[in-house]
C-alpha cells in the first residue's frame, strides 16, 4: 500500500516535470520519498524559527515586525534579512537530509551512471535564470553601493548600507548553496535516472538562488524616508527583478525540463 502510494506520487512528480515517459524505478521512488521528508524538515525548521521568534517577541515585549513604526528603519531591515537567512538555512537542512539519504541509496546500487562532460553553473541553472540572478544579486549589490554613496541624509545612508550588507550576505549564502548543489555526486543508474538527477539538480540550484534580495528591497523601500528618491530606487529595482525572474520562470516552463547543453 505504502509502496503503491510512493509509485503514484513518483508518477505524479514525473508528469508535473514533463518526464511522464519515464517509468518509476525503485531508486527514483525512494529518492523522491527522501526529498519529501527533506521538504518536511525544511518546513519544520521554518516553523520552529517562527515559534522561537514569536516566543522571543512575547517575552521581550518586542513586536519584531519589519513594518513596526516603533522600530528604526535599519533594525527592521536587519530583522527581515535574518528571517531570510533562516529560510535559506532551512532549505540547507532539507537538502542536507535528502542528500544523505541519496548517498545511502547509491551505496546499494550495482550500476552508476554519470555525464562524460563537465557542466558549469550556467548550464545547470539555465541562461534565463542566470541572467535573472545577475540582475537580482548583481543589481542589488550595485544599487546598495550607489545609494550608500549618493544618499544625502545619514539615516538613508545607514539604510542603504544595511541593504548592501544584506544583499551581500544573501548572495554569499546563495553562492555557497549553489556550490553544494553542483558538487553533489550524480544519483543515477541509467539514462532515465540521470535525466531525473539533472532535473532535481536544476531545481535545487534555482531554489538556492531564490530572489530574496527583491523582498529585502521592498522592505528597505518601506523603511525609507517618505518622499525620498530611495523609495523609487528600491521599487524600480524590485520591479525589474520581478520581471526578470518571472520571465526566467516562464521561459523555463516553455523549454525542456533540463536546460540545453547538460545532456
Amino acid at each position, binding site marked *: 500500500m505504502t509502496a503503491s502510494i510512493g509509485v503514484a506520487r513518483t508518477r505524479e512528480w514525473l508528469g508535473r516535470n514533463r518526464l511522464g515517459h519515464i517509468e518509476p524505478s525503485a531508486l527514483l521512488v525512494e529518492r523522491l520519498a527522501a526529498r519529501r521528508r527533506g521538504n518536511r524538515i525544511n518546513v519544520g525548521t521554518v516553523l520552529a524559527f517562527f515559534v522561537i521568534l514569536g516566543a522571543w517577541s512575547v517575552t521581550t515585549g518586542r513586536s519584531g515586525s519589519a513594518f513596526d513604526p516603533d522600530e528604526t528603519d535599519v533594525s527592521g531591515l536587519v530583522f527581515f534579512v535574518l528571517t531570510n537567512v533562516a529560510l535559506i538555512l532551512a532549505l540547507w537542512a532539507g537538502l542536507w537530509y535528502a542528500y544523505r539519504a541519496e548517498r545511502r541509496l*547509491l*551505496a546499494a*546500487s*550495482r*550500476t*552508476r*551512471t*554519470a*555525464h*562524460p*562532460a*563537465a557542466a558549469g553553473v550556467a548550464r545547470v541553472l539555465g541562461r534565463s535564470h542566470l541572467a535573472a540572478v545577475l540582475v537580482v544579486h548583481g543589481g542589488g549589490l550595485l544599487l546598495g553601493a550607489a545609494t550608500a554613496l549618493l544618499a544625502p541624509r545619514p539615516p538613508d545612508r545607514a539604510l542603504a548600507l544595511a541593504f548592501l550588507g544584506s544583499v551581500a550576505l544573501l548572495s554569499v549564502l546563495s553562492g555557497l548553496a549553489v556550490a553544494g548543489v553542483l*558538487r553533489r*555526486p*550524480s544519483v543515477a*543508474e*541509467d*539514462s532515465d535516472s*540521470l535525466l531525473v538527477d539533472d532535473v532535481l539538480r536544476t531545481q535545487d540550484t534555482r531554489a538556492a538562488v531564490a530572489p530574496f534580495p527583491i523582498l529585502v528591497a521592498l522592505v528597505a523601500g518601506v523603511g525609507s524616508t517618505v518622499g525620498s528618491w530611495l523609495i523609487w530606487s528600491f521599487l524600480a529595482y524590485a520591479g525589474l527583478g520581478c520581471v526578470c525572474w518571472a520571465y526566467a520562470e516562464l521561459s523555463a516552463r516553455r523549454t525542456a525540463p533540463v536546460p540545453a547543453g547538460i545532456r
Partner: protein
Amino acid sequence: MITIDTASAVPPYEQVRAQLAGQISDRTLAVGTRLPTVRRLAADLGLAVNTVARAYRELEEAGLVETRGRAGTFVSAAGERSRAAAAKAAREYAAIARSLGLDRAEALSIVRAAIG
C-alpha cells in the same frame, strides 16, 4: 553517458576508458569538450580517484584527451588529426591492394597481421 557496472569482470578504469574513448571516436564528445574533473567523475561513479585518474592518463597517452593545467581535461584535437591520418593511410593502402589485385579478405588479413 558513462555507466559503471561494479559486478562486471572488466576493471572499472577500463570501463571508464573504453566508454570515453568510444564517445570521443564517434564524436559524441566533440573536440574541446571539457571532461569532469577526476574527483567529480570518481564521486559520480562511486570509484576511487586513482581509478578515474588511470583512465584519464591512458586516454591522454592515446592522444584522445589533453590536460590544460588547472583548466581541466579536454577532448583533444590531436585524436581527431590522428584519426584523419589513419583514414588517409587506409585509403592509400586500399588503393595499393586493389592495384596489386588482392581481394578484400586477403587485404584485411594483412592489416590484421600488421596490427598484431
